[in-house]
Every structure is written in structure tokens, then in C-alpha cells.
């Protein structure tokens, strides 16, 4: 039961162009969404997040868009740089309900982004 899905295992982009990473979710109880970036042999690092009360959040070159009706979010990186090459994970959190703790993030499978110089 994959509640968070990243259907593109990989994405290749030219330096300077836009990278768009997509994520779909099935659980309508999710109300907070995050993107993490992971380099090889390192732990994931937080990139950007968005609450379900918003449809867009921007931080420098990174923008996350949320379409609640479609249960879809996307991460835009503009302009893309070679140093952005990494695995990007989408993650979701649901409000505490039925004993669910705040601790659980549900992650997608990740998308490998390669930015070519």
C-alpha cells in the first residue's frame, strides 16, 4: 500500500533549465508535505515543505506546488545546477488521529535527478 508515489525513478535535465519532480498521494488525511534531498552515503536533508492550507511555497530556486484536489505535489528547481544532482524524496504527514503520533513520515520511493553541465 504505497500511499506516497513518485512515479519517475529518474530525471535528467540540462544545467540552467527547470527540473520538475512529481509526487502523488492517496491518503486524504495527509496535511503536511515535505521534500528531502539525499546525496550518496549521506542522510536525507530537508529541502522545503508545504502545509495543506497553501498551494505554493517558495524558497530561493525551489518551489513546491500542491494540488489537493488531484492529490499531487511537485517540486520545481529553477535554474537547475549540477550540484542539485541527488535523490529527491517526497514525504507526507497526517494530523494526529486515532493514536497516530507526530513521528511518522510516509515517503515516496525517490527520484534520481541528474543535472548535466
Amino acid at each position, binding site marked *: 500500500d504505497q500511499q506516497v508515489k513518485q512515479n519517475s525513478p529518474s530525471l535528467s535535465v540540462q544545467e540552467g533549465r527547470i527540473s520538475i519532480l512529481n509526487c502523488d498521494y492517496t491518503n486524504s488525511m495527509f496535511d503536511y508535505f515535505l521534500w528531502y534531498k539525499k546525496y550518496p552515503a549521506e*542522510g536525507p536533508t*530537508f529541502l522545503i515543505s508545504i*502545509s495543506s492550507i497553501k498551494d505554493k511555497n517558495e524558497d530561493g530556486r525551489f518551489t513546491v506546488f500542491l494540488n489537493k484536489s488531484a492529490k499531487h505535489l511537485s517540486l520545481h528547481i529553477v535554474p537547475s545546477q549540477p550540484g542539485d544532482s541527488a535523490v529527491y524524496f517526497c514525504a507526507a504527514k497526517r494530523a*494526529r488521529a486515532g493514536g497516530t*503520533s507526530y513521528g*511518522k*513520515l510516509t*515517503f*515516496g*520511493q525517490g527520484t534520481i535527478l541528474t543535472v548535466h553541465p
Partner: protein
Amino acid sequence: GAGVSQSPSNKVTEKGKDVELRCDPISGHTALYWYRQSLGQGLEFLIYFQGNSAPDKSGLPSDRFSAERTGGSVSTLTIQRTQQEDSAVYLCASSPTGGYYEKLFFGSGTQLSVL
């Protein structure tokens, strides 16, 4: 160090043996999490500790898995009678208070290989 520290970084073991994985969270962080990433999969939640509250163990895949956190700091994840399907990267994370909107700080993980 300033980050989350995990040891060992790599562990190779034989099927049926027990293993212990250690996590040192960021000093002062009260919330501690264990996740694992199997090959080609996303991160899978295992267990969550928050202060003195009872841990959320809902993600532990079987009773061979257990974890403890001593003195509200260091945590140990123990896998008994390891199986080949336990092979994965085990990631520990911490956050300051476990607040809903807090970001998690991850360690570099322990790569576990069960032969």
C-alpha cells in the same frame, strides 16, 4: 559533533545472528526516529521516541526488531535472528521537540548486509 551520528556505518552479518545499531542524536533533541531504506524503496518508518512518552512502535516489521533509548539520548536498534530481507540502510533522525512542523535531521545511516 553537531549532527546525528550512527554506528557502525557498515555491518555485514550472517543470517540468524543478532545485530545492534547505534544512534547518537543531536544534543538537546528530544525526538528520535528510526527509518530504513531497502534497495529501490522509499524510507520506511520503524519507530519514534519522544521524551518520556511511550514510543510509537507501529512501524517495526516483526517482533525480531526492538529499540530502546537510554537517558533520553542514545538509541539502539536491535535486530534478532537477522534475515536476508533485513538488508537495508537503517537511518536515524532527530528533531528538537517532535513538533508537528519540525524538520528531521538524519544521520548517514548504517548499511546492513545479511548474507
